């Protein structure tokens, strides 16, 4: 397509068309440039489309000489931001081993490893050393912080302040502000812990409060029941 300057409205139209392409005509080498543009668009507009990115990685697999490692790196960063979804692994399955050996990809794989194993301190240390990779994608920090909070919410009813601080890489006054905001809007409660400083009470969910677990697992979709309506009479 090769449009250079686009107003936000036109950009919306381009992404709609790209999604359509991926749905209707995905096995088509001609859409490769569109998909590459779309990756860049996802980065700048802070949107995300796993299907489109997988489609592009497939095309790179079919024609390795057309692969752009820069685009692949951007796709991987976006996938990291999608955690806890396994998107990062899904992308790696499609990237040849020799490409994964390159420095920037080794770094991204290490970052993913830290996140997958809850090693947030090591993650933020490593991310600080690789600013050029992660700062290229706006929204990265917030996305990882959201993931950290997600895992913490699965695990803790009450979490000590230092543990939280380390996980989301916010300290001091910024952390105070952050906590205030979450208390006001996110249902967090700030308590005084015994001797060791603040305790943060995270919102209740079925994972950190097992009594909230509904037996939704045995629920039946309506369409299955409709099959037996004629029998039930």
């Amino acid at each position, binding site marked *: 397509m090769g449009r250079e300057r686009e107003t936000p409205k036109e950009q919306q139209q381009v992404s709609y068309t790209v999604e359509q392409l991926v749905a209707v005509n*995905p*096995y*088509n*080498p001609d859409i490769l440039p569109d998909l590459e543009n779309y990756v860049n668009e996802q980065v700048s507009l802070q949107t995300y489309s*796993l*299907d489109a990115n*997988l*489609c592009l*990685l*497939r095309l790179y*697999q*079919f*024609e*390795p000489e057309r692969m752009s490692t820069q685009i692949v790196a951007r796709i991987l960063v976006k996938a990291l931001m999608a955690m*806890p*979804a*396994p998107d990062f*692994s*899904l992308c*790696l*399955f*499609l990237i*040849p*081993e020799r490409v994964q050996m390159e420095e920037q990809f080794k770094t991204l794989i290490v970052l993913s*490893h830290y996140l*997958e*194993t*809850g*090693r*947030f*301190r090591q993650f933020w240390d490593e991310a600080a050393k690789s600013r050029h990779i992660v700062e290229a994608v706006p929204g990265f920090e917030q996305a990882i912080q959201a993931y950290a909070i997600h*895992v*913490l919410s*699965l*695990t*803790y*009813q*009450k*979490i*000590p302040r230092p*543990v939280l601080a380390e996980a989301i890489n916010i300290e001091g006054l910024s952390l105070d502000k952050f906590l205030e905001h979450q208390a006001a809007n996110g249902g967090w409660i700030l308590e005084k*812990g015994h001797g060791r400083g603040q*305790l943060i009470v995270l919102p209740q969910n079925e*994972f*950190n*409060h*097992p009594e909230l677990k509904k037996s939704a*697992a*045995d*629920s*039946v979709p309506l*369409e*299955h*029941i409709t*099959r*037996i309506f004629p*029998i039930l009479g």
Partner: protein
Amino acid sequence: MASNYEYEEASATYDDAHRQDLGYDPNFVPDSVKSFVVHLYRHIREKNVYEIHQMYEFSFQTLSDRLFKEAPWPSVDAVAHYVDNDQVFCLLYREMWFRHLYARLSPTLKQRIDSWDNYCSLFQVVLHRAVNMQLPNQWLWDMVDEFVYQFQSFCQYRAKMKNKTEQEIALLRQYDQAWNVYGVLNYLQAFVEKSNIIQILEQEKEGLEQFTANDGYDYSGGSNVLKVLGYFSMVGLLRVHCLLGDYQTGLKCLLPIDISQQGVYTSVIGSHITTIYHYGFANLMLRRYVEAIREFNKMLLYIYKTKQYHQKSPQYEQILKKNEQMYALLAICLSLCPQVKLVEDTVNSQLREKYGEKMARMQRYDDEAFGLYDELFSYACPKFITPSAPSFEEPLVNYNQDAYRLQLKLFLYEVKQQQLLSGVRTFLKVYSTISLGKLANYMEVDEPTLRTILLTYKHKTHAVDSDGKIISNADVDFYIDDDMIHVVECKPVKRYSDYFLRQIVKLEGVINDMDRIKLD
């Protein structure tokens, strides 16, 4: 059941056997073959699906075993004049001809390319002309299945560049479109689209279509070929995407088929197994272990109960092989996600017999364990392919293992990340509450490390399902209150609703059948 077809089953004469020894004469047509094509042609014209099926599944096998054990069938040119030179029949005959060749002999590069051409011609006809045939589902499934198989075989063949002759390299360069990945995927996609199968399945849910109820056959005078090929192509797409390592898209392609129900995919045992095998494998790679366990369990139980009926079938060996592979995959899933209560007793006892000891060792997560994960994965995984064209520059290398090595490496990487979880699980099963300090002591790690291990446990046991929701895989769970761990025993999620629904429908069927019996 008396067979109704009237052609003479001529026993192989000395001449026939003699000719095999002398070498293959493509123009020699034994009488039994002449009879076979004449009758098959007639049955197809008369839309006699039952007869077609008998001839396709059994007569073809019998003749192959008797006359063509190690030789190809007569060439299509030799039989064409017996069947009015009918273009479509010739394409169908050739498709069977190549399938037989692949099964009994080793195809040459030229034959591989010719087979591709034949598929292109056959598919073009089905896609662009209104064919007026009804073919048995078994045959239509075999076409799609064989198409994907020959593609996979070609990629494996092409990736072994090291010992290729000058001739072969020249042919590969010349016919670079043959078995091109774009071509393969686009044909499958074209079948799905042109047949409108997705809309048909949607409309069926609202009672506006009768596809599954008729097993895909068309009782209003039309043809089932395009529709059923479209349907099976969805399974074909799932398979191709798994071979490429794109599990997410593979599952997406299968989405229109509801695997919690019977459907056309269960009407052919080969299609049923292929669907569930790849569905389960994709879910395993997506870390949706519970889903994989559920489906493997159902499939393995089904095979256990029904395999005796397929003993004489040409697919029997394949059924057994896939059965073993699924047990291996089930062993892997259960080692990573111990939810044994999801497995039926029969399947469980088979599993213990085959892999009980290995599973115990796998859960130790030491070096030996990783070796076992490697072994089982390598045995059970699909034959991954590298879809891109080879490099013709010296030195020529073999890269046919690259795709497999990558998938194995990433799988073992995931297993490694779950290494410490088994230890946590053991402790959690013993305590109802325990302080972080104490547990850290027992596990011989410091407290911050324990916190990360517990976070890993939570993350790995709470997968993201296809709708983006979080679902827990954990058999034993916990939450932390400041520095105190509270353990929660999880009840296994056994789905009774599906079972009851199935039994209700089944009973209704039995009652209806009984009503139809007229007692004199």
